[in-house]
């Protein structure tokens, strides 16, 4: 990994945007298998950063470091740092409780996975965990989150109905609302549209654009066109390495690395 590729010359106008999280020399192991090799990249405040790359390149692994969801499984190991700024907290440090990390970082998974409860209770789930009990506050924050996820108008009359009555696309937007309700510092989206049809996908892409006024978004996608549509910054990963990071437009139109060029022009992946 050459330092030059991390700060490409054409990314300079972006340098003014403050950094919300800084990945520094992050390596990750599943048992003996090293899935990430010294990844370093910034995550800009209130921007969408996309992570792209072929299957098995480590993009989801990288994303799942941000909320320590890896810690649920035995035999994993982190090295390096994912530092939240300006707090200066290293999210992957052993001394940092993963629950504290997850209270600050929201996540949406590949497949819509609402809880088998009502729509309201799904969105309020994260608020209950944080000890929010007052009905008025819950109501307000549930509505706000549902509006952010562009779902409010569709469900406002049936908040007490089961989340399983919703369509797949609505369920995924519900999961986005659930992650947004506690007002996370970072929102992680792990291929959020890979299980959805094109119309549902378009709705989610649209709403992601609106989220960045409130929250910093990291999205993993195998769909390059999606990365180009929704993100301001893109990281290209291959075989556990970060190959190139830059603002989305230049990464797609004028990549500095040969592997990036081959990938974005569809020569492999």
């Amino acid at each position, binding site marked *: 990994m050459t330092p030059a590729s991390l700060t490409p010359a054409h990314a300079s106008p972006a340098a003014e945007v403050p950094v919300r999280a800084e990945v520094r020399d992050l390596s990750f192991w599943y048992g003996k298998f090293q899935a990430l090799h010294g990844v370093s990249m910034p995550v800009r405040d209130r921007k969408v950063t996309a992570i792209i790359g072929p299957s098995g390149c480590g993009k989801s692994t990288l994303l799942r470091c941000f*909320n320590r*969801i890896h810690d649920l499984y035995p035999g994993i190991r982190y090295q390096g740092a994912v530092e939240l700024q300006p707090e200066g907290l290293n999210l992957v440090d052993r001394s940092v409780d993963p*629950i504290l990390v997850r209270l600050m970082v929201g996540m949406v*998974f590949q497949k819509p996975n609402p809880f088998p409860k009502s729509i309201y209770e799904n969105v309020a*789930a*994260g608020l209950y*965990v944080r000890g929010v009990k007052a009905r008025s506050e819950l109501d307000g924050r549930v509505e706000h989150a549902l509006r952010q996820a562009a779902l409010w108008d569709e469900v406002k009359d049936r908040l007490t109905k089961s989340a399983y*009555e919703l369509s797949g696309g609505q369920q995924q937007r519900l999961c986005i609302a659930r992650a947004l309700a506690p007002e996370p510092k970072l929102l992680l989206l792990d291929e959020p549209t890979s299980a959805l049809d094109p119309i549902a996908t378009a709705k989610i892409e649209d709403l992601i654009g609106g989220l960045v006024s409130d929250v910093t978004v990291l999205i993993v996608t195998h769909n390059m066109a999606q990365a180009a549509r929704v993100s301001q910054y893109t990281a290209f990963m291959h075989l556990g390495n970060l190959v190139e990071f830059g603002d989305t437009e230049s990464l797609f139109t004028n990549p500095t690395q040969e592997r990036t060029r081959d990938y974005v022009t569809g020569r492999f992946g």
Partner: protein
Amino acid sequence: MADPAALPSDGLVGRAKAQDLVFAVCGVVVLLLVMSLLATLVIDLMRDGLARIDPEFLTNFPSRFPGRAGILSAWVGTTLVMLVTGVLAIPLGVGAGLYLEEYARRGVLSDIIEINVSNLAGVPSIIYGLLALGFFVYLLNMGPTILVGGMVLALLILPVVIVATREAVRSVPGSLRESAYSLGCTRWQVVWRYVLPSARPGILTGAIVGLSRAIGETAPIITIGALTFIAFLPPSPVKGDFPWLNFDWLQSPFTVMPIQMFNWISRPQAGFHENAAATGLLLLAMTLVMNGTAIFIRYRLRRSLRT
């Protein structure tokens, strides 16, 4: 090169269908055989015992005269022992199953425990009876009481409840856990709010299957020395003054329906054999009601999870 327009040869389809037919016929024959055996058993019991079942049979104590004998002490004993068994075995078994599945680290120790729990489910029930006789009755000097009866049956069905709990918990999708953890839930919150409600139908089924096994058990209860003839009821669990609950019944001697049956069958008079058949029918009915309840509750819970 095969002719692209050629159909697969007729013989292929014919042979496959013949195999289907042979298997289907075998299946039906075996099924009929088993069902008719079972039906014979039940019909035989009904012919002998159905006429004996009346309100007096349920409210009379055992007697020297077959016509006056009833199963009051037996069904009350069975009910109370089942109560103790359920109260002990379900929380312990569910707790152990949850711990093993959600909390315990995977390793040699947890493997050994897993194998042992599965094996315990296959230990003959009389072995549990001997354990209870030696440990509870003699060593702890507790006597052949309802409490000891409930405890030995609880031990007997504990592995069933543990295994059922583990299986139910394991079948909760990992995505549900991941999404709960990603909201910042602690392990307890994940288990209590999300895993347990989803696993409840399976756990409940396991618990009732266990209780249904316990209700028919005779060997361990006889081994601990439960009485075979008993003409009084345990003290009432409810009393008139504060605190209204009374636990003296736990210390009472008892009998259960299978023992009462066994006792009557071993007598020469035909009248007692009728009584035994009637008791058997009632025992069967109790088991059916329990299983029916389990199916009903499971159905309700599954529906409430979906809608």
